[in-house]
């Protein structure tokens, strides 16, 4: 029991630190990717190639003056970014980061907990994520913040539906809600789920962009219209929390996308690879992080390519295109499964 608790605590700590570390370096990565795509160099002053830039940024955030507007609701003003950070970090619990490490006689799975409703848990945490933005935006007592908060809530609710429907089709195919089992299915025979659910993947990807408030769906913080959107009034580390939460969300959604549609930690042609035991587990985890980093890069790639949607276009895309498509996807999946005798 005690070893179990220690092992889980260590795992939780590692996932927590990795989430923070990846998020910190994602900010650096974002600036570099943006720079390269615009034929620039990007941050290169702090350390070789500027790799200490996240530390400098973090330090700057801490040292900045903390301003809480007198007309704001103080408790909720502080609760907002805390909730954003909390919900961003919570989803990492159910993601399977790797296989089972063997130490001595015991096996230690690299997944904090494989609850049997894993995918719904992720979905629940994501749906709760909007509160951080809403509460922060409302508590600021600023019209731009409020507009940002309202936009965030309607956007997130709209895209959650399409996302949920995309997941439904996937769940129909896999027949399980547990992320661990989904990965196992994709490993032992059978292709990655992207082969079976290309349309579902596309819908899920678009919704993931909308749920993380990333361009082209970054209307809640749309600088050109709303100053800074929901975080207009925020300064210092509370602003840092909001910005950081966005990058953690990107990291987690990349991990979830890799898990659901790209085989999780499975290597391609795994049975032909002459690795076994812990080496295989380490290779798998490394490969999983490779996929995750690719998707983080993809998020940035899209951000620096596509301009922001107009608000009515956003709603049209969500309600009139993605939701019907997702329903069609469910129907098509059902028909195909019936026709192929998989039911």
């Amino acid at each position, binding site marked *: 029991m005690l070893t179990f608790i220690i092992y889980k605590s260590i795992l939780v700590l590692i996932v927590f630190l990795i989430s923070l570390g990846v998020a910190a370096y994602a900010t650096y990565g974002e600036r570099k*990717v943006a720079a*390269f*795509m615009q*034929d620039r*160099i990007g941050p*290169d002053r702090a350390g070789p190639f500027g790799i200490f830039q996240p530390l400098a940024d973090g330090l700057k955030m801490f040292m900045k003056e903390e301003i809480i507007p007198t007309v704001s609701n103080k408790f909720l003003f502080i609760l907002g970014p805390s909730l954003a950070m909390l919900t961003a970090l919570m989803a990492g619990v159910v993601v399977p980061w790797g296989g089972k490490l063997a130490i001595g006689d015991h096996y230690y799975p690299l997944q904090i907990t494989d609850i049997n409703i894993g995918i719904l848990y992720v979905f629940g945490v994501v749906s709760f994520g909007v509160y951080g933005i809403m509460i922060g935006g409302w508590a600021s007592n600023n019209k731009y913040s409020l507009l940002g908060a309202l936009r965030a809530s309607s956007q997130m609710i709209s895209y959650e539906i399409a996302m949920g429907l995309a997941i439904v089709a996937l769940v129909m195919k896999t027949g399980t809600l547990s992320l661990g089992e989904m990965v196992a299915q994709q490993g032992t025979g059978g292709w990655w789920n992207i082969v079976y659910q290309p349309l579902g993947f596309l819908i899920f990807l678009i919704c993931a962009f909308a749920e993380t408030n990333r361009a082209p769906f970054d209307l809640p913080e749309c600088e050109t219209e709303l100053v800074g959107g929901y975080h207009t009034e925020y300064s210092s580390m509370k602003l840092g929390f909001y910005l950081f939460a966005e990058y953690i969300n990107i990291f987690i959604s990349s991990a979830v996308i890799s898990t659901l549609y790209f085989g999780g930690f499975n290597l391609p042609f795994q049975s032909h690879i002459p690795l076994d035991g812990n080496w295989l587990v380490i290779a798998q985890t490394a490969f999983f992080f490779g996929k995750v980093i690719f998707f983080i890069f993809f998020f940035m*790639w899209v951000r620096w*390519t*596509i301009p922001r949607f107009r608000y009515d276009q956003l709603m049209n895309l969500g309600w009139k295109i993605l939701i019907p498509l997702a329903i069609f996807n469910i129907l098509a999946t059902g028909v195909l499964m019936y026709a192929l005798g998989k039911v």
Partner: protein
Amino acid sequence: MQLTNRKKVVVKKEMSLAEKLYLPAITNGMVITMKHFFKKGATVRYPEVKREISETYRGQHVLKRDEQGAERCTACGLCAVACPAEAITMEAAERKKGEETLYREEKYAAVYEINMLRCIFCGLCEEACPKEAIFLTDRIVPTDLKRGEFVYGKDKLVEDINHRIDLSGRQTKEVLEFKKDKTKAHNQTWADKQKLLKENKHH
């Protein structure tokens, strides 16, 4: 009336299915950004690498000295009059005996100030100067934290006697040729004049 034949009538035409899907356009855009990702950046890493600038670049001003080291400026005020930004102020003073090696003319600028925040670096002062005293150089005015620091006095403007600034690149061949002609008063230093005076006495 038709001015050019480049006119193009804009029609709002129905989009084709591929255009309506937007996905082909998005992939197109993403290919373009990816191409740029691997392109070499155009950035010049400034403090280490300096961009080549023209010899006639109009940067920070200098108040020249002549060959002997005397300040050329005679505080005539033409530069201040010419200045469209009214950045130049000066106070004149009379040269005392024994200061002939310091000031070339009998009148000189006791105070000469240029407000670098007002200055638009147009170079009209340089053109107005009859004494070849003020020039713009290819140096860049450094940044500072206080506004007051940008009012440059003679301490910053007059060229250091040990580190002369070569301005031959800014002058045309004819001017350089003319400057060699020591018979012209414009090109004579105080020492030259003394020498001529002595020679005249001999005769």
